[in-house]
């Protein structure tokens, strides 16, 4: 069964024509997206700034309350 599935995918990929170019394009794109763009330019701000969810909650609560204060709430 596993051999049949392997053979199916192997033959499929081996017989591709345009598909090879498309897979290359997908691989380059995924590399750029995850290894370059995500890694260098798109950190998860809350994950990076804080160690746990309690700290994250407190930070967001602070934003929600202090920005309201700044807007003349109090």
């Amino acid at each position, binding site marked *: 069964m596993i051999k049949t599935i392997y053979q199916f995918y192997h033959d499929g990929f081996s017989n591709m024509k345009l598909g090879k170019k*498309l897979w290359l394009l997908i691989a380059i794109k995924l590399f750029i997206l995850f290894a370059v763009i995500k890694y260098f330019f798109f950190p998860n701000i809350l994950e990076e700034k804080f160690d746990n969810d309690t700290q994250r909650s407190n930070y967001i609560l602070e934003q929600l309350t202090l920005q*309201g204060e700044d807007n003349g*709430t109090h």
Partner: protein
Amino acid sequence: MEHIDPSLIDWSRTQFALTALYHWIFVPLTLGLTFIVAIMESIYVKTGNPWWKKTTKFWMGLLAINFAIGLATGIIMEFEFGTNWSNYSWIVGDIFGAPLAIEGLMAFFMESTFFAIMFFGWDKVSKKTHLLSTWLVAIGSNLSALWILIANGWMQHPVGMTFNPDTARNEMTDFWAIVFNPNAYTKFLHTISSGYVLASLFVIAISSWYLLKKRDIQFAKRSIIVASSFGLIVSLFTLTTGDDSARQVALNQPMKLAAMEGLYDGKSNAEIVTFGILNPSKTLKDTQEPFLFKVAIPGGLSLLSYHNFDAYVPGIKQIVYGDKEHKIMSTKEKIAQGKLAVKALTDYKKAKKAGDKKSAKKAKDVFETHSQYLGYGYLKSPEDIVPNVPITFYAFHTMVGFGTWFILLFILILYTSMTNELHNKRWLLLAGIWSLPMGYIAQEAGWITAEVGRQPWAIQDMLPVGMATSSISSGSVMFTFWMFALLFTGLLIAEVKIMTTQIKIGPKEESHV
């Protein structure tokens, strides 16, 4: 306290708009073309005619190109959530988690199994198994879109959740209320059906080009009959789902509806503008006419919005300044209520920190009383709730105008195909080709209407965009904006180049993929 730079908000919004609009170039074609190839393959399996196999394989090849280039372009929006919109992602986290996880799992299993059978399985599995896989790819791709649109529908009309002041998150209280949110399923049906219209236009445009070039004539005629029949049915369906969607907007986002129609003063028996040129100097506070020119149907807006010719439709002024006669609360009052919610949240936080349970409970009760207006507490003035009227109006009318043209086009093309006259009607073939870019413009215009029209809200009435952004430098967002502009433009050029090469090669016995 971290102050948010207004240019940061603008750049974050512009970047999100850029990525969403580019992503949406690829998605609707995949959603629709999967169904068109499934229909073509069904005809092949039923008739056994190898011409249909060849036809199916050609369009499947173009589907593969679009799918490969569009793949993962949506993931960039998730990157942006974590970096540019971290407040927003934290606040919505619990609501978005389930739908997006289901979407991710579905996409993975569908793509790794049924896509593989669809592309690799010709002559390796039985005809019926292959056909089943093709249909499952079509259904699965569309179900994948369902979960994304449920998330989007929730932002337009948040239901099935409660805001937890301890965690600062919206927590899901009713999964099914979120799934069956009327705003979500009308949006889903309208969005996917418009994708089917685009795919039909795509097949017609390419087939029309073959007919104009007098090559692959039988293939082109066959494809056009499938695409125009499918296109006509789905464009009529798109019309009805658009009507449902607009009714939801009337009920839940009246400001968006007023902006879509350039309606400054509310009225009963409100007219619907079929074509109009807005007065560019019109402001909210003056008495100038909102239109320089318009063609309108009396009572049309009341009828479409509330199924009643005499129904009252509030205008921008009534929503901003209130209207006691029609029991419309002014935005000034909503802002006051919102500020009470923000103050109660602050008091709750302080009381909790001080260990004062009694005060904390009292503050929490006050918060819950006013929490439905929480987002208004962050607005500076009532006029802040007015979105960009010209963009919303023109985007909406472009979408509707083009959509109406597509219905007429499908009727004309189907009729002339059935009478075997189409190949002699050069003007109609040219119209078929030119309608493809119009289809893309209509797709983007639909999203512009939906998203610009709901400004300033990231989550309707709960979270304005200014509160949803992260405190980061606008320079970094500007930089990544241009980076994405380059990346996406490169992908688009690759798509067009590879597609046009394959189209010029034309249908062959063997698959191009």
